């Protein structure tokens, strides 16, 4: 029978899937992800460190301080939808028609036909189930209400179908339980050992589970897992036979209760053990060691006291079933008690959760010599996998290489049979998954077409990565599937994934669509188009059409503008979907069109011609989610149009958009706002129309307080408002918004402030009149003073933007603003002080412009007085404010005078807080640059010493500012003293410190001239100390890099030093010297220093046989530099001697150098090739070279 006729059932089947806009629109999902994750790019300088805030927040709840350090399991962060990946089965191998050729597949091999039949069966089964369910519901209803009227039928159907997923009907349950039991009882039917039927059996297991009574969610999960446990593959069994006993097989010699535990339980147990260990009772020895010997008295415990012995603790304290029953203090190494048997010496630690996988490795009774070849291989793979998963980095690396090298030897079957179950483990962590996926990637590359029978197996495990929330997991998943499709070929991929396209499970179809998109990007869209056409226009099932269209959407999202050449075909393929009878298909078609249009922007409007009409008609005919999808498509297509068309179509669509302004649906609101933004952004829409038609309703229905509460609504509303302002001018919009600055709701004020800030930054304030200006300043000051929330950035930005854009016009308000700031600088709350100081820094320039220097100086003194601030974040901002003032007032007029300010800063340099360091070093650097003469040389020297410590700051900006400051100071007080400090610093042990010192020396050389520094450097090199000499070489390297052409005067001076260094025994000497040669050579290109360069090349050349990657890199780069400055032919002369050397390793190196030469200067080599003489067979002479006039 045809189930698809029944609309009600169809819809309800998918009612549990995620909402259209989250499920179908990855772009949205991603932006949503971004909103959840902390933004890395925008640094919010004005709040306390996020960690501190989080800590204070957490303290109220039961807060686990170790939480952050615990390894994260993937299963923990999965939502219910993503967890559905574990319901999938790692399907058995499939037939590979390419490898088999003309042979008929053996009976026990799963072919395409088998799988399609299975799918069909599954569908029919589902349909029958639905029928049975419905019938039973109906009967029950009838019994309850015999006189029920006919119109209740529809509600019955819907209630019946909703219960299919969640609800429990005892009747149905019993029916299926018995039927299942009877099936199990007849082994002849189900246990005949072909794998095909084995997998079917699994499916049958699954079905009753779905409708069966789920007592607890955990219970159902366990059931799923136990199914996995049954698969012998996981236990390392040699043959995948269904029916092997799962538990007995793990370690038959030493049965331990461990094997009966699930991985989660084991993990629990381990945490518990850890906690127990920390909480164990104190014993007398420990107390004696802690307390002083006298000064107190030890009391006897009262006779009535009995130590607490909770049964649960007793249970956990019992290590083995045969252990002592009484409570006892855990022994020194409680690990052994609960954990796996000790791992053999050459293997990494096996976590209890992994015990099931790796048990055979721990069984020491197995003699490796007696294993058959297959078993031996299996064991080897297991060992390598364990090393990859849990080993130390070197161990892991080696194992990874081995497993790659031997991949073909092991064969795909044994490899994937072990890797894939590991990936499905519920306790898998991110890092482990990453490593295992890497193994698959490498192995795939080696196995190539051998992989074909296993494609589906791999896809089942890898596809969930495509919808992972972690970006890198998604990228990894894509990479694997791309490689897989390259290895297996298009035909195999299609044959493998075709059955999943109309799978009953939405999850399977979703991931399959994404996987198909990756296949398209790997093998090219054109290859997939015929298939897509067939799928998207499938008459048999709407699921297929839905998935096909979704594939196109995913292709658009994945490949971006690369869809352009195929745009027309793709649109044509799916245009029928807009008028499909299935609502879901219509929705996804509209969303796919939106994705295609977005990918194609700003081209490709021709391709969409055919869908414009159905789209616009559709917007009138539909409601709810479908309408949202259609509007979205419209919104992305309109910006592609010619101006006159976009104007026309915008007018067509606008009434619907305006109508939907009032919708209660949040998702719809967001889409409507976005579409308005897109429409208004086009050229074809003019300002008067927007003003008359859109603005009134827009502000009436969308600018309401409730919009400020949802983050994404807030964002979209601000963006759309800014776009509207771009069209109609800032004054109009600001005029409508300005009253909101005094609204009683703070989030709303913030939203207004942010919009005004963006409008003002974009469009300026020239069109704002006197009255509005007063209102604005009044409003922002009100909003600024009334702010309560933690996030101070929006207000700060807003005030700064408005003040800066008013420029001179803000003068009358400045005293009032400064009064507020001064008052806030004195506030109790650190946040408020910090924000005030930040704002001073931001508006200093405008104050100067308004001629308020006196006010500025006053603020300078105020800030100076607050330099004793104890909160580092605030202190940083105060320093930033001072910097802003110094920058505009100038060194000479600054109050407090520089000579007072700088000594006050010297101790602050010692502060370890990054923000303080950064602002302080900036300020000091500024003073050193512009006003060094106001401070004594002695003070500068003192600062030099303080600066040395900052060279090891973590933040690069600080290190760079420090190094630059060294340059300024050296310029101010002469390089000698600064250089002495720096050269001394070369002797310290810390590498980072030395590296920064060498950079500083080079900077000093650059600012004060190399001749002031070089003699001291050369002299320092004579010190027979490794670090110092290397430091000198490194400094020379930076020096020549910075001074470039100036180097020509110093080539001959440093040549003897380089000679010495290039002949040194120490590898690093030669490496660094080669780097010096590189920079020097490139610097003097074309300046006539060839003699010295040729000389240096002779010293560099013998190092070409070095093995260490750093050294050989440096040497090859030096030779490359020589190619540039000395000419390719000179280097070729050096190279010729080894190209045909009898020793291969010599040849290898020389050819590598030759290839570099050849790629770099192919043309220049032509006159330099050696003369070759003809022999009896071949002509080698290049006679044209001998022509002469």
């Amino acid at each position, binding site marked *: 029978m045809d189930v698809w006729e029944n609309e009600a059932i169809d819809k309800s089947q998918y009612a549990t899937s995620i909402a259209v806009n989250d499920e179908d629109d990855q772009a949205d999902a991603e932006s949503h992800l971004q909103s959840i994750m902390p933004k890395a790019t925008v640094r919010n300088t004005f709040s306390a460190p996020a960690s501190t805030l989080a800590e204070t927040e957490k303290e109220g709840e039961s807060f686990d301080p170790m939480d952050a350090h615990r390894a994260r399991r993937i299963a923990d962060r999965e939502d219910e939808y993503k967890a559905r990946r574990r319901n999938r089965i790692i399907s058995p191998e499939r037939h590979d028609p390419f490898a088999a050729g003309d042979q008929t597949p053996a009976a026990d091999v799963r072919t395409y036909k088998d799988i399609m039949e299975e799918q069909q069966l599954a569908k029919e089964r589902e349909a029958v189930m639905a029928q049975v369910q419905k019938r039973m519901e109906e009967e029950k209803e009838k019994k309850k209400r015999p006189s029920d009227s006919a119109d209740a039928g529809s509600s019955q159907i819907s209630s019946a179908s909703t219960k299919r997923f969640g609800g429990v009907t005892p009747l149905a349950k019993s029916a299926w339980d018995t039927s299942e039991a009877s099936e199990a009882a007849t082994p002849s039917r189900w246990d005949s050992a072909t794998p095909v039927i084995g997998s079917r059996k699994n499916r049958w297991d699954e079905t009753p589970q779905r409708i069966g009574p789920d007592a607890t969610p955990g219970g159902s999960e366990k059931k799923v897992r136990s199914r996995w446990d049954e698969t012998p593959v996981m236990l390392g069994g040699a043959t995948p036979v269904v029916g092997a006993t799962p538990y007995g097989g793990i370690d038959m010699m030493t049965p331990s209760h461990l094997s009966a535990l699930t991985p989660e339980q084991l993990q629990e147990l381990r945490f518990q053990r850890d906690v127990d260990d920390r909480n164990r009772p104190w014993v007398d020895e420990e107390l004696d060691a802690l307390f002083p010997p006298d000064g107190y008295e030890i009391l006897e415990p009262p006779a009535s006291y009995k130590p607490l012995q909770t049964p649960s603790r007793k249970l956990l304290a019992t290590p083995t079933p045969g252990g002592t029953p009484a409570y006892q203090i855990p022994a020194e190494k409680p690990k052994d008690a609960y954990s796996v048997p000790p791992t053999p010496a050459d293997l990494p630690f096996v976590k209890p959760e992994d015990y099931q996988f790796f048990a055979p490795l721990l069984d020491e009774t197995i003699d490796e010599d007696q294993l058959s070849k297959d078993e031996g291989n299996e064991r080897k793979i297991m060992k390598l996998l364990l090393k990859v998963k849990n080993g130390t980095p070197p161990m892991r690396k080696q194992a990874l290489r081995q497993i790659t090298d031997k991949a073909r030897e092991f064969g795909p079957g044994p490899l994937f049979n072990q890797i894939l179950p590991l990936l499905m483990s519920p306790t898998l962590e991110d890092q482990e998954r990453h490593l295992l996926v890497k193994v698959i990637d490498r192995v795939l590359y080696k196995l190539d077409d051998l992989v074909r029978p296993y494609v589906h197996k791999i896809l089942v495990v890898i596809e969930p990565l495509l919808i992972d929330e972690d970006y890198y997991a998604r990228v990894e998943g894509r990479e694997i599937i791309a490689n897989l499709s390259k290895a297996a070929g298009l035909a195999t991929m299609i044959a493998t994934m075709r059955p999943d396209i109309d799978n009953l499970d939405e999850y399977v179809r979703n991931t399959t669509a994404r996987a198909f998109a990756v296949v398209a990007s790997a093998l090219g869209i054109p290859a997939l188009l015929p298939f897509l056409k067939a799928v998207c226009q499938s008459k048999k099932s709407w699921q297929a059409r839905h998935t096909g269209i979704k594939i196109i959407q995913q292709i658009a999202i994945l490949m971006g503008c690369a869809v352009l050449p195929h745009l027309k075909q793709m649109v044509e393929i799916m245009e029928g979907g807009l008028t499909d009878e299935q609502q879901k298909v219509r929705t996804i078609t509209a969303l796919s069109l939106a994705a295609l249009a977005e990918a194609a922007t700003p081209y490709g409007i021709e391709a969409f011609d055919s869908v414009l009409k159905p789209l616009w008609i559709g917007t009138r005919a539909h409601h709810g989610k479908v309408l949202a999808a259609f509007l979205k498509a419209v919104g992305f297509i309109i910006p592609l149009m010619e101006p006159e068309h976009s104007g026309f179509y915008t007018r067509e669509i606008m009434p619907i958009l305006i109508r939907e302004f009032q919708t209660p649906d949040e998702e719809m609101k967001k889409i409507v706002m976005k579409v308005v933004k897109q429409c208004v952004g086009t050229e074809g829409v003019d300002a008067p129309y927007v003003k008359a038609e859109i603005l009134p309703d827009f502000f009436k229905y969308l600018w309401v307080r409730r919009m400020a509460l949802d983050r994404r609504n807030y964002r979209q509303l601000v963006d759309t408002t800014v776009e509207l302002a771009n069209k109609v001018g800032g004054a109009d919009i600001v005029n409508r918004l300005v009253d909101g600055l005094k609204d009683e709701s703070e989030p709303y004020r913030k939203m207004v402030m942010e919009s005004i800030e963006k409008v003002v930054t974009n469009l300026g304030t020239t069109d704002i009149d006197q009255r509005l200006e007063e209102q604005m300043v009044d409003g922002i000051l009100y909003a600024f003073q009334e702010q309560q929330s933690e996030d101070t950035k929006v207000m700060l930005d807003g005030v700064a933007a408005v003040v800066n854009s008013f420029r001179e016009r803000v003068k009358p308000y400045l005293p009032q603003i400064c009064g507020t700031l001064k008052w806030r600088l004195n506030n109790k709350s650190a946040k408020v002080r910090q924000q005030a100081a930040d704002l001073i820094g931001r508006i200093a320039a405008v104050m100067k412009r308004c001629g308020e220097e006196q006010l500025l100086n006053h603020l300078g003194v105020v800030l100076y007085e607050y330099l004793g601030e104890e909160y580092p974040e605030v202190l940083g901002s105060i320093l930033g404010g001072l910097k802003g003032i110094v920058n505009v007032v100038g060194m000479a007029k600054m109050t407090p005078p520089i000579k007072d300010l700088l000594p006050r800063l010297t101790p602050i340099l010692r502060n370890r807080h990054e923000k303080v360091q950064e602002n302080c070093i900036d300020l000091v650097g500024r003073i050193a640059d512009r006003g060094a003469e106001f401070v004594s040389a002695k003070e500068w020297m003192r600062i030099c010493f303080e600066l040395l410590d900052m060279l090891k700051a973590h933040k690069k900006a600080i290190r760079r500012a420090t190094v630059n400051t060294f340059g300024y100071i050296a310029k101010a007080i002469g390089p000698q003293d600064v250089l002495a400090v720096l050269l001394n610093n070369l002797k310290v042990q810390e590498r980072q410190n030395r590296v920064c010192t060498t950079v500083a020396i080079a900077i000093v050389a650059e600012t004060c001239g190399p001749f002031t520094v070089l003699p001291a450097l050369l002299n320092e090199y004579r010190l027979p100390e490794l670090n110092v000499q290397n430091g000198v070489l490194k400094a020379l390297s930076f020096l020549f890099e910075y001074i470039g052409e100036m180097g020509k005067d110093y080539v001959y001076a440093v040549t003897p030093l380089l000679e010495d260094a290039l002949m040194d025994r120490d590898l690093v000497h030669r490496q660094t010297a080669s780097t010096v040669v590189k920079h020097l050579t490139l610097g003097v290109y074309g300046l006539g220093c060839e003699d010295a360069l040729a000389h240096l090349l002779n010293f560099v050349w013998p190092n070409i046989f070095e093995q260490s*990657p*750093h050294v*050989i*890199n440096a040497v090859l780069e030096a030779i490359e530099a020589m190619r540039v400055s000395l000419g390719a032919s000179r280097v070729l002369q050096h190279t010729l001697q080894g*190209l*045909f050397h009898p020793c*291969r390793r010599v*040849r*290898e190196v020389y*050819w*590598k150098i*030759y*290839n*570099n030469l*050849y*790629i770099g200067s*192919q*043309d220049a*080599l*032509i006159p330099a*090739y050696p003369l*070759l003489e003809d022999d009896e*067979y*071949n*002509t*080698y002479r*290049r006679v*044209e*070279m001998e*022509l*002469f*006039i």
Partner: protein
Amino acid sequence: MSSDAKSVYSQQEHLQMKYVGTGHADTSKWEWAVNQHRDTYAAYIGHYSLLAYNSVAENESIGRLKYQYLQKMLSPCGKPPKKEDD
């Protein structure tokens, strides 16, 4: 940085092999010479002044010389010599 440097180093050979005309430890004299010849002809064709110079020396038209060089690029040194170990 170290991993970067290493990977560049290990990939260098692979990168070089992408280009026609590069060699390796097992490149024979004949292969190398063929590349030299082709490069030489390509250079003549690419540098008009060289072509003009040669056409004066050979008393041929520039176009014909260009054609000749193009033809010669097909098999500049003759057939590959038989391998010694065959």
